[in-house]
């Protein structure tokens, strides 16, 4: 690393060298107060992250008086980034007494992210196991591009009714499309197979592969707007449901024919997608596959807000876990829920964890007599970021049919 000393720094170093003998004679009490000047800021341990990016988080440059407060703040800023597993600062002797080289030591995090979900639920007279996995590379080409492979299986275990689904998706995400951190884009291919039938005769089935393309733009500090198209040249889909008049309607909407268009607006002020401690996400979708009676069962509106209080995190959710911007959440939730979560003490293997209980409510449709079919229930689970397995989510969910 080449040593670079600017003019301001040279003057400061010269002045310090005049006072060097005096400084050496200082007592122990005043050593703490001895002024130090930054000669240079260098980085170590950064293989794929530029030192310029790291240095940008320290508001000190060569020639400045050393401010330890600024160094501790920079340590926190860098520690908040997912790019590093550890960040440490240290000083080295510079060219003259009182001149220091600030060394930023980082250990870069693996760009590979793994996520596993293992759950069991008993809903609407169907017991099922839910298995999901995701593996993603989040810093492709060293430029922050993402490639993401996710699979979900909902496997029937027992029960009078049917709910079975298999979903595999491969996505390429550019969070800085065209080199601008205002734009993002997602291209993907997905295959989905799902069958369900409830005790009242509402049913749905789909077996389709599709190509997806989404372009988005971030607005102001936290908002975004996106437009997506899904193309499926060959699909096998059917659905039937009771309506509020007691009529049975079978449908094959055009929105789920050869292509689907989606316009989405949302915001995201959460500090963490998996373990939010504050902030909210909101998304509203128009068009596309967002119909609660469709086999996909996604909602038009999603909202999540988290507060910290009484030693716990409280999260209100409408429409399940969020998938803001280019992110994609895997999980099973009720339509409306309030979650109470407590942090788990980290250890050698758990970097972060929470257990949670989540009472909730869901509108499911109508019965054969035209009355509202709804459920209420309780989800209890444990979510952790582990060194061995990556993100792990374990849960049990049980609901009761409130319309009976």
């Amino acid at each position, binding site marked *: 690393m080449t040593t670079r000393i600017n003019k301001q720094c040279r003057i400061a170093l010269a002045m310090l060298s005049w006072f060097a003998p005096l400084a*050496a004679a200082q007592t*122990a009490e005043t*050593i*703490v107060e001895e002024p130090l000047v930054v000669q240079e800021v260098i980085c170590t341990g950064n293989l794929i*992250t530029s030192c310029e*990016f790291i240095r940008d988080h320290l508001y000190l440059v060569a020639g400045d008086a050393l401010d*330890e407060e600024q160094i*501790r*703040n920079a340590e*926190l*800023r860098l520690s*908040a*980034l*997912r*790019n*590093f*597993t*550890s960040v*440490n600062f*240290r*000083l*080295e*002797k510079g060219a003259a007494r009182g001149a220091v080289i600030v060394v930023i030591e980082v250990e870069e995090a693996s760009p590979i*992210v793994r996520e596993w979900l*293992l759950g069991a639920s008993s809903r609407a007279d169907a017991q099922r196991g839910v298995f999901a996995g995701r593996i*993603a590379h*989040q*810093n492709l080409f*060293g430029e*922050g*591009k*993402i490639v993401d492979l996710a699979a979900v299986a909902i496997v029937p275990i027992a029960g009078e009714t049917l709910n079975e689904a298999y979903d595999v998706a491969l996505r390429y995400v550019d969070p*800085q499309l065209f080199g601008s*951190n205002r734009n993002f884009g997602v291209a993907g291919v997905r295959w989905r197979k799902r069958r369900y039938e409830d005790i009242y005769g509402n049913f749905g089935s789909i077996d389709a592969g599709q190509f997806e393309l989404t372009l988005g733009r971030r607005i102001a500090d*936290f908002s975004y707007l996106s437009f997506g198209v899904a193309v499926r040249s060959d699909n096998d889909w059917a659905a039937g449901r009771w309506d509020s008049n007691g009529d049975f309607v079978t449908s094959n909407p055009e929105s789920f024919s050869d292509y689907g268009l989606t316009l989405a607006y949302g915001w*995201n*002020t*959460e*500090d*963490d997608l998996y373990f939010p*401690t*504050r*902030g909210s996400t909101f998304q509203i979708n128009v068009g596309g596959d967002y119909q609660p009676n469709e086999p996909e069962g996604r909602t038009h509106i999603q909202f999540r807000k988290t507060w*910290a209080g009484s*030693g716990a995190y409280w999260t209100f959710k409408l429409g399940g876990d969020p998938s803001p911007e280019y*992110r994609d959440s895997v999980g099973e939730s009720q339509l409306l829920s309030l979650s109470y979560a407590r*942090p*788990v003490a*980290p*250890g*050698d293997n*758990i*970097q*972060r964890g929470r257990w949670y209980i989540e009472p909730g409510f869901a509108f499911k449709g109508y019965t054969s007599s035209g009355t509202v079919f709804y459920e209420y229930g309780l989800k209890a689970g*444990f979510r*952790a*970021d*582990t060194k*061995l*397995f990556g993100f792990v989510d374990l849960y049990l969910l049980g609901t009761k049919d409130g319309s009976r």
Partner: protein
Amino acid sequence: MRRAITLLLLLANTGVDAAEVSATLADGKLGARVDALSFPSTLPKELTSGLTNRIYAQVTLADAHANRGQKVVEIAIRYDLWDEKFSVVSTMDGTIAESRTLASLPEVNALLAALPLPRLFETANLPAGVELTLRVEVLLNPIDREKMLMIRKWVAQNNTPEVGGRAGISMSNAIFNQIFDQYADGSNVAAAWRVSIASAPFRLDSLQHERR
């Protein structure tokens, strides 16, 4: 199944700290000493980093019914890169109580192995025949709530990805997350390394005066 069992065992694994707190008596004042604290393995490296490391100890004296008092001791340790010595400055409730220079890392380690927190509470105000306990919460390089709020705001404002930088779906630095969780727990100060320990019950009349 084997992986699931392994996971459950790992999740149940929690560290146990063997630290002990004992009461001390000097100059008519009650103090504490914390022995065998398991500081992070990176501490020796941090101590010689040239930056100031702060050990923050909040000491609470209580009897069976109520808290009798609380003191905060902060020990600032800084290594002088040129003199190759450590300056150690202790403050109590914000006032400098003691300054000294230690010549080597082993001397600092010896100090930390039996962390002295002397002369905290006037014994004249305490009952002699009542059982007391000392609870000590020790934090390394604590961060106060105000600064944490500032950093959290920064995180929220900067979670938009940049080229070669903050792309991704979640921050995952364990140390930072631990600190967040401590604030949710209601703490006013938090740190990546934090230990809470209590002494065995003792009576003032059973303590012996220490020489200075």
